[in-house]
Each structure stands twice: as structure tokens, then as C-alpha cells.
């Protein structure tokens, strides 16, 4: 005999919490670290590697490390030798910038934060005024770094600007310039006007198709072609132009990818409402395309920032150049681990911050799943 089928439910079921073993710390551990035997053995292996590596690294870097001394012979073989820090930290930060003028770099650095704040933080008081300030900041910073003032403050030649200050200057200028130029190139590449489209394609393909290092080498031959004959371009400006151009070409392609992900309906809805081209782009298309492109954009920023170390090929001494010079100095010969670890920390701090910020931004802009 078959069971009579279910005809009507007398009462709707109410919600129940999930089983205790699937929530909380225990649940997280079970599902993420010990869900099956492969996962469990990988977890145990990782713990073993950490157990082996971390204590000895800490021992090398801190416990057995030598912090003071005049040269490398003051250091033992067992631990890291940080004795050079005291003498050399100024060069790592400021390059060959005159020591008594380094306050100018410090002030420019401090003034940077209120210029960044209105673009990175949402609810900041006086946002409008800070934005105006940030437009003038590059000029203020440039004057602080190299300008003179009626002989009371001496001008500094940019060739003396070096160390991490140079990486930051070139990196920030490149980031600030490459995003808008990249957007324009991406839009240009999709333009219906052939001249604009061809220019964008040629620029992107040429600049992207050669190594940055060659662009830097030839910049003092190439750039004067586009400039009036009597304008001699300063080395730092040349680097900024080349690094920005290079990053813009990558940026354009990253953003083009974002633009292509926007459904045709968004363009149509915008036109059907009577929005013009620039209005549609600014209000509808770019906000969505840039949001999609955030990982690629930040990727390009990070690449650009690390590429600033290539300035060494045209004779500027950024933080890596200073490090190279130091490890070949007889007093500190052979301290490459310490030096490059130290330099890496600077780059890691900046790049990791960019990455974390972009992840926060992505979550904030994720309106689909909120």
C-alpha cells in the first residue's frame, strides 16, 4: 500500500539556529583548517614550517643582532648587523640631500597627509577646502623640495634628491598622473573619432611594448623632441614623465577591461535619459568601470611604485641605489641581507597599505550584495 501523499501543511516551521559545530571558532577551524585529510596535513605542515622559521628569524633580526659599532667588524657572525643604521639612515631616507636642509623634505611629507585625506577618507570635515589644498600641494611640495627663496633659503638641485624621498616623489607623482591619463587613453581607444582612437592605440601599444628601463635611458634624447629647444628638462621631471607615461599605458588597458564589463543597457539608459557623452561617462559608466578595475588599478600602482627603483639607470640615487652603494663600501661589505631586508620593509609598507586600502574601498563600493 502506498502512503497517502502530503496534502497540506498545518503550521509553517519557524527558523532555527545552525548546529553549534558549524559556527564560532570551532566551526571555523573545522571548515577552514581541518575539513579533510589533505587540508589537515597542509595545516600541520604549515605550522611546522612556521615553527622552524619564525623563531630563528627573530633570533637573527633582534635577539643576536648588533645595534651599534663603527663598521662591520664590530658585528658578530651570528646575528644581524644593524650598526650601519645609525650612520646611514639619513642617506636611505634623503639620499645626498644636504643634511641641514632635510627639514624641507620632512615638512613636505607631513603636508602630504592632509592632501591625501579628502580623496581617501569619506567623512572628513572641510573636505572641499582640503581638495582645493590638494590641488596646490604638488606645487608646494616641489618648491619645498628644490626651490629657493630670496637667497634666505638656498635652492637644492634635484640630482641631490634621493633615498626613499625620491621613490615617494616619483611614485606619488606617477600615481596621481597615470590614473587620469589612463582613463583618457581608455576612453580614447573606444572613441568613434578615428584620430583620437589611433593616437590612443599607438601611444598605448608603443609605450607598453618597450621596457621602462629603455624609456628612462632614451628619455633625455626623446623628450626634447617634443619640447621647445631651449627647455632643458630636469632628471627627476624626466623620470616622472616617463614613469607616468608607462603606467598610463597599463592603466588604460586595465580600465578598458572595466569599461567592457559594463552592460550595453547602462549606456542606453543613460542616453535615453538625455545625458550627454561626458555626463554618462562621469556619472554612470566610469564609476562602475573603475570599481570593477580597482584590483588592476592598484596592481599597476604597486608595480609603478616598485619601478621607481629603476631611476638608478640615469644616475639618481633612490633608496635601492643608496643600498647598493653601501653594500659595496669596504666598511659595510657583505651586509646585503640586512640592507635589502631594510629596503624591502619600506616598499612593503607602502604597497601593503595600498592593497589593504583598495580592499576596503572595494567592500565599501560593493552595492550589489549589501
Amino acid at each position, binding site marked *: 500500500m502506498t502512503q497517502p501523499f502530503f496534502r497540506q501543511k498545518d503550521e509553517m516551521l519557524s527558523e532555527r539556529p545552525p548546529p553549534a559545530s558549524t559556527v564560532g571558532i570551532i566551526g571555523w577551524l573545522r571548515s577552514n583548517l581541518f575539513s579533510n585529510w589533505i587540508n589537515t596535513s597542509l595545516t600541520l605542515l604549515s605550522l611546522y614550517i612556521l615553527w622552524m622559521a619564525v623563531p630563528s628569524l627573530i633570533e637573527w633580526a633582534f635577539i643576536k643582532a648588533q645595534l651599534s659599532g663603527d663598521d662591520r667588524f664590530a658585528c658578530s657572525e651570528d646575528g644581524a648587523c644593524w650598526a650601519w643604521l645609525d650612520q646611514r639612515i639619513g642617506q636611505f631616507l634623503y639620499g645626498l640631500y644636504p643634511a641641514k636642509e632635510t627639514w624641507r623634505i620632512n615638512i613636505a611629507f607631513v603636508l602630504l597627509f592632509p592632501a591625501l585625506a579628502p580623496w581617501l577618507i569619506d567623512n572628513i570635515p572641510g573636505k572641499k577646502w582640503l581638495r582645493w589644498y590638494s590641488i596646490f600641494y604638488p606645487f608646494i611640495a616641489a618648491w619645498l623640495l628644490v626651490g629657493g627663496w630670496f637667497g634666505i633659503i638656498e635652492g637644492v638641485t634635484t640630482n641631490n634628491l634621493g633615498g626613499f624621498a625620491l621613490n615617494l616623489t616619483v611614485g606619488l607623482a606617477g600615481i596621481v598622473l597615470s590614473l587620469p591619463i589612463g582613463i583618457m587613453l581608455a576612453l580614447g581607444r573606444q572613441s568613434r573619432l578615428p584620430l583620437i582612437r589611433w593616437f590612443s592605440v599607438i601611444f598605448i601599444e608603443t609605450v607598453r611594448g618597450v621596457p621602462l628601463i629603455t624609456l628612462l635611458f632614451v628619455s633625455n634624447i626623446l623628450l626634447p623632441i617634443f619640447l621647445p629647444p631651449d627647455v632643458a628638462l630636469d632628471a627627476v621631471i624626466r623620470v616622472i614623465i616617463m614613469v607616468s607615461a608607462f603606467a598610463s599605458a597599463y592603466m588604460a588597458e586595465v580600465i578598458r577591461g572595466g569599461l567592457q564589463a559594463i*552592460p550595453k*543597457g*547602462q549606456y*542606453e*539608459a543613460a*542616453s*535615453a*535619459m*538625455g*545625458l*550627454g557623452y561626458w*555626463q554618462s561617462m562621469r*556619472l*554612470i559608466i566610469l*564609476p*562602475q568601470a573603475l*570599481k570593477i578595475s580597482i584590483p588592476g588599478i592598484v596592481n599597476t600602482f604597486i608595480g609603478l611604485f616598485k619601478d621607481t627603483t629603476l631611476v638608478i639607470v640615469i644616475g639618481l640615487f633612490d633608496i635601492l641605489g643608496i643600498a647598493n652603494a653601501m653594500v659595496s663600501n669596504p666598511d659595510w661589505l657583505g651586509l646585503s641581507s640586512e640592507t635589502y631586508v631594510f629596503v624591502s620593509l619600506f616598499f612593503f609598507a607602502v604597497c601593503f597599505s595600498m592593497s589593504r586600502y583598495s580592499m576596503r574601498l572595494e567592500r565599501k*563600493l560593493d*552595492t*550589489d*550584495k*549589501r
Partner: protein
Amino acid sequence: MPSTENQENANPNGPSIKIEGLNKWFGSFHVLRDINLDVNHGERIVVCGPSGSGKSTLIRCINRLEEHQEGKIVVDGFHLTNDLKQIDAVRSEVGMVFQSFNLFPHLTVLENCTLAPIWVRKQPKREAEAAAMEYLERVKIPEQANKFPGQLSGGQQQRVAIARSLCMKPKIMLFDEPTSALDPEMIKEVLDVMVDLAESGMTMLVVTHEMGFASQVADRVIFMDEGQIIEQNTPQEFFNNPQSDRTKLFLSQILSH
């Protein structure tokens, strides 16, 4: 001056939309063939026909989302040519509702509604928001104003899309299969809003397969096939007394369930 010539039909007693000898090709495919159509002020027209018959393309020509190669389209006195000023003028007078809603996902419901009034009509933000709230009230979702489109159901999104178009105070509304992407439970809430709009005297062109809607509110039903208008009539005559064999076949297929 071109504007006098371009505005020849601006008198309010003339047709709202006048289409003469319209031909359009996609590549070598002749999608619209010699279409002639006058739409009067306040007239409600339902366009139906099999897929690929050119009905969507026809209404997309009216706000120039598609360019036509031959013929004349005059909307509210404006000639549609390559003249961008005329196109912008037409677009700000004509609202459009799409099958896939096309709400802007990065803006809230309210921002979706106020965007065009603020940027195209240059209305002050406060005024645009007040007007938008009225229209959201009218489509019965004022409580969703500060949500993002992704948080709404399909029916709610389509009602927002209708409110968004109405915020521009259009003289003509085009609907391109507004209920085709909706679950059956949600079709009614959208149709109710459209019926309400039809009763308010809006000039409407609706591409749809909702024959109940057609018989309830349409002044005229147009049947298209192979890029041509095969038959047009009042809904009563159209459904009860179809003339051509093609129409009879179409009706028997869509009404057989």
C-alpha cells in the same frame, strides 16, 4: 534657420509622433520596411509580434537608440536626424523603460531618479528629490528610496525604472517588453503601475506580449512581422476579428495556453 523647418509639426493638435517611410537595416538585414505610423497625443499603443519582427527596433528608433537610414521620424515636433541638439531634445521628452530595467547599480533608488532631472534639467537637488519621492509614491515603493537596485526584486526594480523615467516629466513613454524578464508573481505589480499611467493620459508605446494589458488599456494594437506593420486595429477588433492569416496564427499561438 533649420529650427523652423525642424519644428514643422510642433502644433499641439498634430500627432505626437509621426513616422513616414521608415526603413532600417542591420548590415544587410532589412529590419524595418517602409513603416508609416502616426501616434496622437494621449494615445496608448501596444505593439506585438513574433521575436525578430522589428518591434523593439521600431520604438528604439523613436528616441534614436537606433539610427534609421531612410524615412522621416518627427517626435513632438523635433526631426530626428544626426543633429545632436534635436536628439537631446527628443530624449528629454521621451521616457524609456527597458526589458532589463537598466537601473544604475552604483546609485541608490533615489539617486537613480534624481540624476537626469539634476544633470539634464538642471533642477536643484532638493526639488528633484521631492519630485522623485512623489513618483516613487506613485509606483508604491517610497520606502525603498535609499536602497540600492541590487537589493530589490525584479518587479520593484522595474517600478523604479518607470518612476525614474517619469521624473523627467516626459510627454511620451516607450516600454520595451517591460515584463518579459519578470517572474509571474511580479508582472502584475508592474502592469498595475502601467495601467495607472495609461489612465492618467500619458502617450504610450508598449511592446509587450501581455494581451490582457492590451485589451484593457490600448487604444490601438499594432501587429508586426518581418519588419512590417501587418495589421492595426482597436483591441476589440484586433482580438475578436483579426484580418490577416499571419495575425490569426500569431494570436492562436499566444492565446492557446
